[in-house]
């Protein structure tokens, strides 16, 4: 068991080593943290299932350069977000905004939770009414 845990931990280490940037974009921690947050928030629209932080394609590196320049120029998060969505739409954001089109997307976890709780409650109530020593197959 502990051997498997060790292997798993090693696998995590190698994944981290695959990050694309070889050196920090900024010398100071606050701006580097903002940069890291943004490159993980933006989707690589070319490869589509990776953030620009993790993609080796040319467009992802161009967009990382863009984020770096905008942070270096002192632009706000709102400005960076607007720059990206004006060009690539909300799809570029891994955290889609709450709009009429995304209500269902955002409501889905809550809806699924209600449905699950409702079904579970029904089953529990029904089972609790059944005689304890009865065979569940017969009760059903």
């Amino acid at each position, binding site marked *: 068991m502990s051997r498997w845990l060790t292997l798993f931990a090693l696998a995590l280490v190698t994944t981290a080593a695959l990050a694309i940037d070889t050196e920090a974009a900024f010398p100071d921690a606050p701006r580097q943290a903002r940069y890291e947050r943004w490159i993980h928030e933006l989707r690589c629209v070319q490869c589509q299932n990776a953030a620009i932080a993790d993609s080796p394609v*040319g*467009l992802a590196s*161009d967009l990382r350069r863009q984020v770096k320049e905008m942070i270096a120029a002192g632009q706000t998060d709102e400005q960076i977000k607007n720059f990206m969505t004006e*060009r690539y*739409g909300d799809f570029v954001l891994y955290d889609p905004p709450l709009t009429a089109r995304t209500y269902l997307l955002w409501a889905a976890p809550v809806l699924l939770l209600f449905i699950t709780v409702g079904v579970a409650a029904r089953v529990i109530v029904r089972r609790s009414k059944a005689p304890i020593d009865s065979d569940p197959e017969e009760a059903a």
Partner: protein
Amino acid sequence: MWRYFAPAGAFLALGALFAFALMRIGEGKLDIREIKSPLIGRQAPTFVLPSLTDPTRQIDSHVLAGKPYVFNVWGTWCGECRAEHSALLAIARQSGVPVIGLDWKDDQQQAVAYLAALGNPYAEVAADSDGRTAINWGVYGAPETFLVSAEGVVLEKHIGALSIAIWQQKFAPHLKSGGPS
């Protein structure tokens, strides 16, 4: 009884939905990778870039104003661009709308040789060596083709290789003269 049919019914409905979507993808009617451009209906981004064929000369997008133009993003590294090249040549010849090329992150000499070998459909080719203009146009994979109105508004965008059929269906209706048929 319904407790047995409800899950089976839900499963069948989901299966039917997936089959429908997969068939639409197979027929080429649905592209799950396509991102609708937020630029449609808005002013086209401006640019000033060196000409591919004469790097000492700058191409300023402002001189394109006043008449519609096709804006085609391509590169010699892009296989699909080769596939659409003959369609681009036909459109440039017959539609009466100038085709402006954006050579995206390309090798200048290779691009010039490519046009010499395959024919040049472009009225102008701007060289976007650092990819900034492509980002401004929301480009995420060549080839991409835009139609810009005389007022400078983006009317249409096609992602992937262009064909005469796609031109007729998506682009020609925006123009008075229909273009190649």
